[in-house]
């Protein structure tokens, strides 16, 4: 609402221009539209003005760092935004599974997930309003440029979609039980589909603001708008970021609702409650890890496009001042992988069939630990002169090669392959396969694992250390391909193997309390990771509001130290956690009914009717 008001106050209107060159990267020449008049309007003239050049004194001072304030508010908005956009995506899938299998447990679980999303929605809107207000107050020139001249009416569309999203969300949630069975369910599912379509549209619109600031398009070198809104939106980083955020949001949403399930599991008093929340936690973890596995590939595409747009920007991230952050990223992703794997291994205790695969766990754990150590090994660290002399250089003669990207790629892809192995043996734990060709299928699967692992190592070592840079980058494609082959063939082979398989009983709720902490580690690491990588992406602009077009001359236009970044990220994560506990509490509260005390004189509705 606030956004709509602010946009309305600033007087948005159409640019009156259309582009004559639309190919990406080409100069887009202005062309005055002659629909209404040959005379350009005030607004169209204003969009041809260059981007503003604010001086330090043009930034309002509020006694605290403006960037830090906006950082906290924006991050909170993004966390909750990610949650409310992601949850309906997998809720719709779960609802559909419940509908097709006629199993009401899925339907109930989907409804419970939506309860969390609904509470989070109001908080998202609150932080969105606070963010809009703070941006206009603290960065008036930038916001004026972006809202009135660059994006213009698109922001009105965003505001309108926000209202539509609210409407659909409330109808979808509150209409759940009214539209539960028969043909009415199709109406409910359609509402869910529409809700997700609107939510995803909101996501990609908001992404276009971010990517415009990183890799502007539809404007000339001075910042004058020379293209239409489509030219402005479809910058080179837009689609990579859309995909990356979409997948990451699902993984994040799965992890957060997993924590909810774990919390409820640990609080559960009865076996039935434990069984329900154990199953809910398992489903959430499944969603989170399943979405997490392709995330590195989307990240790879995004980074490749960043390199293609500006090699300088790409190297700043991967080899410049921001490169150290990727050591922290390694710690975070490995935490996620350790937690996800540990939960799967613990979950194998639910069925007797899990014993058959327990011997594999120690080997998977060994690969994960070794992978973590390689990934986290820095290329070089700050030494004293004496240490350099003793070491014989700034890189360790043996461990030095582990610090560069090819070694880390090998580690990452092997960790992903072996995480999939955990996933695969977990799925097989409660199955007794009956097909006659089981032996051949297993031999094929083992061969695929071996060949893929060897290929990942060979590509990394050969192309990474014995060829030049061009081939180094190319080797990642082979490694991505090998990993995908394992995942896809594993899913396909198991699908055929499970036909006619005998299913062993699964004792839901029969899992250690300790394993539930893995479901807390996941959202904590995911949240921290999201905040960190969001910071990295934003910092790639360095001292530019709009890269190479509009300079950031504020007092905060520097890249802060890692300690400062760590403090900020932890602060926003703790804040998010506090709000999340509030949401869990509210979601729980809605299910609590007070029973009138005996002799209090209260009458139930049934008694009253009687």
């Amino acid at each position, binding site marked *: 609402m606030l956004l709509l008001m602010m946009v309305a106050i600033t007087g948005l209107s159409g640019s009156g221009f259309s582009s004559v060159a639309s190919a990406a990267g080409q100069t887009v020449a202005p062309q005055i539209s002659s629909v209404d008049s040959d005379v350009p309007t005030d607004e169209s003239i204003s969009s041809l003005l260059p981007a503003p050049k604010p001086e330090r004194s043009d930034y309002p001072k509020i006694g605290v760092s403006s960037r830090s304030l906006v950082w906290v508010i924006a991050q909170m908005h993004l966390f909750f935004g990610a949650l409310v956009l992601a949850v309906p995506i997998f809720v719709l899938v779960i609802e559909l599974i419940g509908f097709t299998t006629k199993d009401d447990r899925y339907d109930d679980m989907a409804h419970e997930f939506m309860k969390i999303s609904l509470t989070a929605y109001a908080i998202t809107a609150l932080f969105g309003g606070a963010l809009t207000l703070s941006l206009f107050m603290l960065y008036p020139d930038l916001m004026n440029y972006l809202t009135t001249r660059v994006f213009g009416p698109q922001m009105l569309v965003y505001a309108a979609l926000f209202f539509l999203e609210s409407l659909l969300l409330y109808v979808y949630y509150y209409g759940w039980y009214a539209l539960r069975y028969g043909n009415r369910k199709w109406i409910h599912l359609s509402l869910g589909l529409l809700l997700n379509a609107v939510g995803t549209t909101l996501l990609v619109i908001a992404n276009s603001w971010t990517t415009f600031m990183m890799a502007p398009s539809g404007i000339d070198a001075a910042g004058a708008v020379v293209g239409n809104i489509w030219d402005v939106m479809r910058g080179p980083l837009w689609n990579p970021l859309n995909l990356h955020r979409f997948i990451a949001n699902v993984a994040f949403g799965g992890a957060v609702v997993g924590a909810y399930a774990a919390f409820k599991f*640990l609080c559960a008093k009865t076996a039935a409650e434990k069984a329900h929340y154990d199953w809910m936690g398992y489903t959430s973890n499944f969603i989170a890890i399943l979405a997490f596995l392709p995330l590195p590939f989307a990240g790879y595409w995004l980074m490749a496009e960043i390199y293609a747009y500006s090699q300088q920007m790409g190297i700043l991230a991967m080899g410049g001042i921001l490169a150290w952050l990727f050591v922290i990223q390694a710690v975070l992703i490995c935490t996620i992988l350790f937690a996800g794997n540990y939960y799967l291994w613990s979950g194998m205790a639910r069925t007797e069939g899990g014993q058959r695969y327990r011997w594999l766990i120690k080997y998977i754990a060994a690969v994960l630990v070794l992978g973590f150590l390689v990934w986290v090994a820095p290329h070089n660290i700050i030494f004293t002169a004496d240490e350099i002399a003793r070491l014989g250089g700034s890189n360790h003669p043996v461990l030095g090669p582990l610090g560069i990207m090819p070694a880390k790629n090998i580690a990452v892809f092997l960790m992903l392959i072996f995480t999939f192995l955990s996933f695969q043996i977990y799925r097989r734990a409660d199955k007794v396969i009956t097909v006659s060709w089981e032996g051949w299928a297993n031999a094929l699967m083992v061969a695929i694992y071996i060949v893929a692992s060897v290929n990942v190592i060979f590509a990394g070592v050969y192309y990474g250390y014995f060829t030049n840079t061009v081939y180094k980058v190319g080797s990642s494609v082979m490694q991505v391909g090998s990993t995908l082959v394992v995942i896809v063939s594993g899913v396909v082979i198991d699908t055929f193997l499970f036909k006619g398989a005998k299913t062993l009983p699964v004792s839901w709720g029969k899992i250690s309390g300790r394993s539930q902490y893995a479901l807390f580690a996941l959202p904590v690491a995911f949240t921290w990771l999201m905040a960190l990588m969001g910071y990295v992406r934003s910092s790639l602009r360095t001292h530019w509001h709009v890269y190479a077009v509009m300079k950031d001359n504020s007092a905060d236009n520097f890249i802060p*130290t890692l300690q400062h970044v760590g403090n900020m990220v932890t602060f926003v994560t703790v804040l998010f956690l506090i709000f999340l*506990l509030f949401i869990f509490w509210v979601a729980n509260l809605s299910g609590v009914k007070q029973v009138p005390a005996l002799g209090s004189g209260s009458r139930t509705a049934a008694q009253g009717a009687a």
Partner: protein
Amino acid sequence: MNVLIRTLGFSLALMLIFTAVTYVLPQMKGEAPEDTAVDVAALTMDSFISLGEDLFLGKGACALCHNILDRAPDLLALNVVDTSLVRIGDPLYQGEAVNAADYLRESMLDPNIFVVSGYGKKGSNDTESPMPVADRPPSQLSNVEIDAIIAFLQAKDGNPVTVALPVQTPASLVAADEFTDPVKSMLAQTAEEVIAKYACAACHSVLDAEAAIGPSLNDVGQRLSIDQIRDSVIAPNAVIVEGYAPVMPNTSETMVVRELELIVQFLAEQTGDQP
């Protein structure tokens, strides 16, 4: 409540570990370059080359790609002058440069004019360079800054510097961060700063310092005329005071005129009568 405390404690402990990692890694701060005017009148060739080195490593961000990681030709390892001449002789070269300085300037202002084999943008078949144009954002180097980088690249391998020192300060000339601009940061503003900068007190008694390697400067204004003082600073070994060794370093290559006048004026006033 017990569950709440345990889960909250676990989550906070995990976050503290992540935060601790940021504390053990090197702490660097990336300052934004500030547009400050270069005092061209104060430039010597040494400081001009030094400015070029600073721009190469800093504002120009050249070293981000031109390094040992082979993302671009490693200019610090190559003899850039010799290499430039080889490039000019390449049959694929279509530029207009006839010498190394022109080639380097041309490469910075129009990187696509000649892309070294293997270093082009992916898919461009080495017809398009990933290097940004030097005088445009984000680097936005001025002509003086571009010349300074060329001077540095020529001088680093002992080649003669062929670019001329800038002779005036056009309004448009802007340079690097004032904190990293060697010219600005090296230029002494007072006589005391000149004495500190050139370490005069290491050998001479001057100001509050006592040293006997060179003659005392506390009464030099009484012994020498202002012109003799100036000559002694410019050519310290031309006339040696009896009893002292000719060990004073020659500062004429590095000291700028303004600094020279500051120290000469100051020394002329040192008559031994000061408190």
